[in-house]
């Protein structure tokens, strides 16, 4: 069992209850999509799985280790085996793309190699290969501030691909891309996961993409798991229930056709 959550709850520092009593088991090499309305706790769940947030209560096991009972050094070593793709990748505007991608391996490199890489990129072919898979090979030496939101998202994905983690977590990885690019990028992610025996968990706004690319779908609502089913068992009724919005009674939100996302960053 790669990811193992038992009765996990999470309350943010501002008092908002993000997750409540979540039980979740994901085996190695599974490909799982998390869907749900805005504010359902998708990002919180992924950050928990990435050990970026500490659960308030409950038990969390990642790759067979209880992340929050390890020493800080061991936890950093565990984190190097987990890759998290951020919705708006936090990249310094003045960093070059090649450096941003190579930074994926910082958890595996020693300090000396990391600092040397800052002066001169040590693995240009590796970075170029990761970017080329996302059709971004020509931006290798551009600065991050010169890229659009969708291109930045792909740089973030290239960084995690270069990191080559055992668990790949993606928080709305294609939200700033056009439909064709989103389709392509998701299939690159899924193929990478299949070829390298990586466990893939992604949260997605676009239900169609989730159903098309992932075999297992988890519906999250109000910090709780509403359903956890194979993709072909998810029907219209379940989706309507997942996305039902009490505040918008007069104009119910149609869940399915929401494919193109406006970049939020």
């Amino acid at each position, binding site marked *: 069992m790669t990811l193992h959550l038992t009765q996990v709850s999470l309350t*943010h*520092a501002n008092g908002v209850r993000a997750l409540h009593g979540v039980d979740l088991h994901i085996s190695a090499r599974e490909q799982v999509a998390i869907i749900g309305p805005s504010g359902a706790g998708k990002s919180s769940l992924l950050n928990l799985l*990435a*050990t*970026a*947030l*500490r659960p308030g209560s409950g038990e969390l096991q990642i790759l067979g280790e209880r992340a929050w009972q390890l020493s*800080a050094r061991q936890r*950093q*070593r*565990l*984190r*190097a*085996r*987990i*890759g*998290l793709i*951020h919705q708006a*990748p*936090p*990249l*310094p*505007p*003045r*960093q070059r793309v090649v*450096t941003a991608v190579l*930074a*994926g391996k*910082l*958890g*595996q*490199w020693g*300090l000396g190699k*990391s*600092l040397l890489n*800052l002066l001169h990129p040590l693995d240009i072919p590796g970075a170029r290969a990761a970017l080329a898979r996302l059709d971004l090979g020509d931006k290798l030496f551009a600065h991050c501030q010169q890229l659009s939101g969708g291109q930045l998202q792909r740089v973030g994905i290239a960084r995690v691909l270069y*990191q080559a*983690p055992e668990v790949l977590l993606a928080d709305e990885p294609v939200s700033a891309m056009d439909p064709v690019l989103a389709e392509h990028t998701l299939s690159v992610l899924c193929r990478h996961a299949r070829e390298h025996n990586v466990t893939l968990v992604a949260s997605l706004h676009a239900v169609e993409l989730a159903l098309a690319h992932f075999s297992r779908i988890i519906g999250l609502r109000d910090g709780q798991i509403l359903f956890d089913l194979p993709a072909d068992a998810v029907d219209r009724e379940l989706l309507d229930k997942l996305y039902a919005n009490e505040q918008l009674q007069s104009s119910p939100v149609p869940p399915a056709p929401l494919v193109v996302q406006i970049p939020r960053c």
Partner: protein
Amino acid sequence: MLSRDTRDPATRPRLLLTLLALVLLWPGIHFSELDLGVLVASDSQSEIGKFVSAFWPPAHDEAFIELLLQATLQTLAIATAGMALALLLAIPASLLASRALSLSAAARAGHPGFWGRLLRWPVRGLLIFLRSVPEIVWALLFVRAVGLGPTAGVLAIAITYSGMLGKVYAEIFESVDQRPAHALLQSGSGRLAAFSYGILPNVAAELLSYTVYRWECAIRASVVMGFVGAGGLGQQMDLSLRMFAGGEVASLLLTFLVLVLLADQLSRLLRWRLT
């Protein structure tokens, strides 16, 4: 005037703050015994006038120019050596004092843990101590300890400036977006690596311009310390002032002007290269 339509809720606080500033500043003028009247009093005016009139022409005989060149080089050397020593202490201290490298902050939405906060205090205290004693006092102390000469100036600058640089560096590190560094920490990288990949690219230009500005300040400080016998242009200035050699003073002041101008241009050049 303050009818309902045009009422700005910020008016009253602004008025009160202005009043408060005036109330606080007035005693300041009183306590500093500032009296602008002395400037227009006739005898001091003629005294200043006589001194200033001796400024022209600036001294430019060969012997003095050679002396000036040597003193300038010594001043530059004092400032640069002092800054280098200060950086040796300031960089590690700023990294320790800054929250930017906190592992616990990455997992707690930017709020570092209790122990981290507690451990940062002694470092902050050290930096406060280092910069609270003026460099001229350190210089006087070191002139007694190591004798007249540039060494005292170098040590005095190193001590005071490490405190200033450390404090401001730490604040610059904290002032930029912390998310890139947090993301790196959360993917397993070490603190120093996360700092150099996540924070350094954003702060490099500001660090550089502040360091060059402090170097410029160090040049001026080394001049002041020359008056207490720490070598360089200041010592020369002291001698010339005592001998009422106005032309020499003018040459020395022109040299300061050129030095500050050069520092300014250097800072601009470096910033332009980095952006």
